């Protein structure tokens, strides 16, 4: 396997499968103790992008559209991988699991880059240096290259004219390409202006000392050229919907994982998975 194999989600989950098998084989005495490979930082964002890549919208009319063929593909990818133990079901950021070697691959926000540790520490307190590779966001096979552009942005609160003006002056300074790039290099957030994203960033990338940020900006530059950035429409209740979706999906995946672990002691993996996942998608859809 190479990093090239992580360009699509299908390949990524196939890699996860292989990684699980390989790690399982490290301890021949213990069955089904393979290790997780992957975690998506936000399952909601992953579903939003996945649907868009496959030509659908996850949200229609302010509600989740979970009955599309596109969503079924996304469900299969995440749910199956999670139940089989290839993907983490974790209520936190992937970087936490990466620090302890519990996963080796994740998708997430560019700003997450500064949270990766250069060292992986294992449960017995042994540790080893870790090198981060940053790649463009994976795309479902036969899907469009789409990535998510989502953030809180900045707003100026109604105040005295002086303060409002001062806020505007600050934002003008802050979004100036030179300053923007300094911010990008410190935080991993991507630029908000074409000028900062363009030639200037290409020039500056070579001078960046932090290898992770350098890789991040190179990947971002590629994505800016080759991907379509999707900014979902915000509406009242989207945050609550996101929380609900992620909590329910993790709960149902964790529950199926427990069932699977019970079944797998007596059944083969495929049969155990089928037993654990029977009717679960419909049950999940009915929750919304």
């Amino acid at each position, binding site marked *: 396997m190479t990093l090239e194999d992580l360009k699509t989600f299908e390949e990524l989950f196939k890699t996860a499968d292989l990684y699980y098998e390989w790690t399982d084989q490290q301890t021949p005495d213990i069955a089904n103790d393979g290790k997780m490979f992957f975690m998506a930082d936000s399952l909601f964002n992953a579903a939003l992008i996945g649907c868009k890549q496959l030509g659908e919208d996850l949200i229609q009319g302010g509600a989740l559209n979970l009955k599309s063929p596109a969503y079924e593909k996304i469900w299969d990818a995440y749910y199956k991988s999670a139940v089989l133990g290839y993907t983490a079901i974790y209520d*936190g950021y992937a970087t*936490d699991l990466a*620090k302890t070697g519990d996963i080796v691959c994740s998708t997430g926000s560019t700003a997450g880059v500064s949270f990766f540790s250069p060292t992986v520490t294992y449960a017995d307190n042994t540790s080893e240096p870790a090198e981060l590779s940053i790649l463009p966001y994976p795309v479902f096979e036969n899907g469009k290259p789409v990535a998510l552009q989502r953030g809180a942005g900045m707003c100026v609160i109604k105040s005295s004219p002086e303060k409002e003006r001062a806020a505007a002056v600050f934002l003008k300074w802050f979004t100036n390409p030179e300053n923007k790039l300094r911010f990008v290099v410190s935080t991993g957030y991507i630029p908000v202006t074409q000028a900062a994203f363009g030639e200037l960033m290409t020039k500056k990338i070579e001078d960046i000392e932090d290898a992770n940020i350098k890789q991040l900006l190179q990947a971002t530059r590629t994505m800016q050229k080759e991907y379509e950035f999707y900014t979902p429409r915000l509406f009242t209740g989207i945050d609550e919907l996101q929380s609900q979706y992620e909590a329910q999906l993790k709960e149902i995946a964790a529950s199926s994982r427990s069932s699977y672990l019970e079944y797998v002691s007596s059944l083969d993996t495929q049969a155990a998975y089928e037993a654990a996942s029977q009717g679960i998608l419909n049950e999940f859809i009915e929750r919304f």
Partner: protein
Amino acid sequence: MIKILLTRLGHIKNKINIPGNQTLPMDTRLFLLFSVLVLTIIAGVVAILFITGTFTAGLEESKRLVENELNHSSSAISRQYGELSVQAIDFSRELTRSMEAESQRTGIPLNKLADHPEILEEVISAEFERALFTLQKSKSSGVFFILNATINPALDKAENSRAGLYIKNMEPNIISSSSPNFIVLRGIPSISRQNSLPLHTQWKMEFDVKDAPYYHRPLEAALANPDLPLSRLYYWTPVTSLPDSSEEVMLCSVPLVDSKGNVFGVCGIEISSMLFKLTHLPDNNIFNRLFCVLTPLKENSMDFHQSMFAGGYSARILSRGGDILNISDPSTFYTYSHKDNSFLGLHKHVQLYPEGSAFSDEKWLVAVMVPEKDIVNSITTLNLLLIALLMILVIAGIIAALVLSRRFLKPINEGLDIIKSADLSSAPRTKIAEIDNLIDYLAVHNQELYEKARQENLSLSILDEFLENTKELSPAERSVFDLYVKGHTAKEIAEILCLSINTIKTHNKRIYMKLNVASRDELLLYINMLDEIGIKIIDN
């Protein structure tokens, strides 16, 4: 306005300097008088300002401000550090009590944990809630405990690696946050995951205690002073960063001592530099760069590298250099200086330890200071303002003197012009009582003088006629007349001229007739009148 004033003053100067003009006009005199008054008053004001110390009031005001800030900061810091010390001691007692109970259950003494790394996760996990609760109630930025044991004694780093737990509150300044931002800096990851807390970016599983005074000093103090209570064994580190961690913190470490006196670790509470800054930010509108420092005192100097700061940016710039600041004797302020920077301020000792503490020889200061040039600039600005105000007062005073002197004299001059006029009785009023009275008086008095002069003119014409008539006297009559003028009587004249009295009488009659007088008395009256006006009738 100034131009007009200068022109007027030029005129006045010319008037004063005119050669041979020995008398100054009244308006110039009055202007000079007013000017002297104005300048005297201003000089008096300046003298009073000097005596009352107004010119140095900026310095005093600055001192008062810094004193207030120092009092406020030092009491707030004493209270905060005192409360956290007590909470750290309570944390130590609670941890020890709980862990001893667990120790009795497992049968493994707490001072033997190092021999049983396999139970460390369970021991630490059991105290997670207690640590989190201490963090929640303490208004601190972190809480930790370190056991004298490591989960993997086989590792090379095991000698300086200690198991424990360190939880940080990333937003300690937000009171009663609905979603507190707790994060695990040190600890076994499975414990943080069980409790849904994320790992810090600079997370490590265990504490590296190779160079960790927060671990060794209270531990050694407890071993060296077995009879001292925990309240005399806690230790506040100067500002430090944990190995592989970037945030600057102060830690209050308390030894963990079981009921048998075995020292088996330390625990404590953290104040991050950010929490200190947010808690003790000086509140003033005068000096933007005023800042508060909590610093260990070493031989009359302070090490900014080991200090907490709250306030201006200058402090942060300086602290990066890790420079030692020397404290010099106070005038109004203490001076805190090193080669590039100089600050003025005041400081106070703060007691971080009680009497009898193992660390009572560690002295701490709270200082409030400002870059020296800020105070100097502030006082210079204030005094320039004061001087400008005084100059404005002087100019305004001189203008007022000029205007008032002219206005005051205008009606007087008009009055004088009126007085010079011929007809005072029909002269207009000046509305100045004294001048109007003078005009009235002069109007009446001038009439009297006129009448008198007229009368006098009349008298003079009679005397002239009398004098003319004397020229008509014969020589013999003239001889008699001259003797009358000299004051002789008729009898004396008869004797002097050797004439009979009858001859004299005859001469008299002719003299009276020629001089047109009726008697000798009238003749003598004329002679006296002529004498009074200085006309000599005869030559001596």
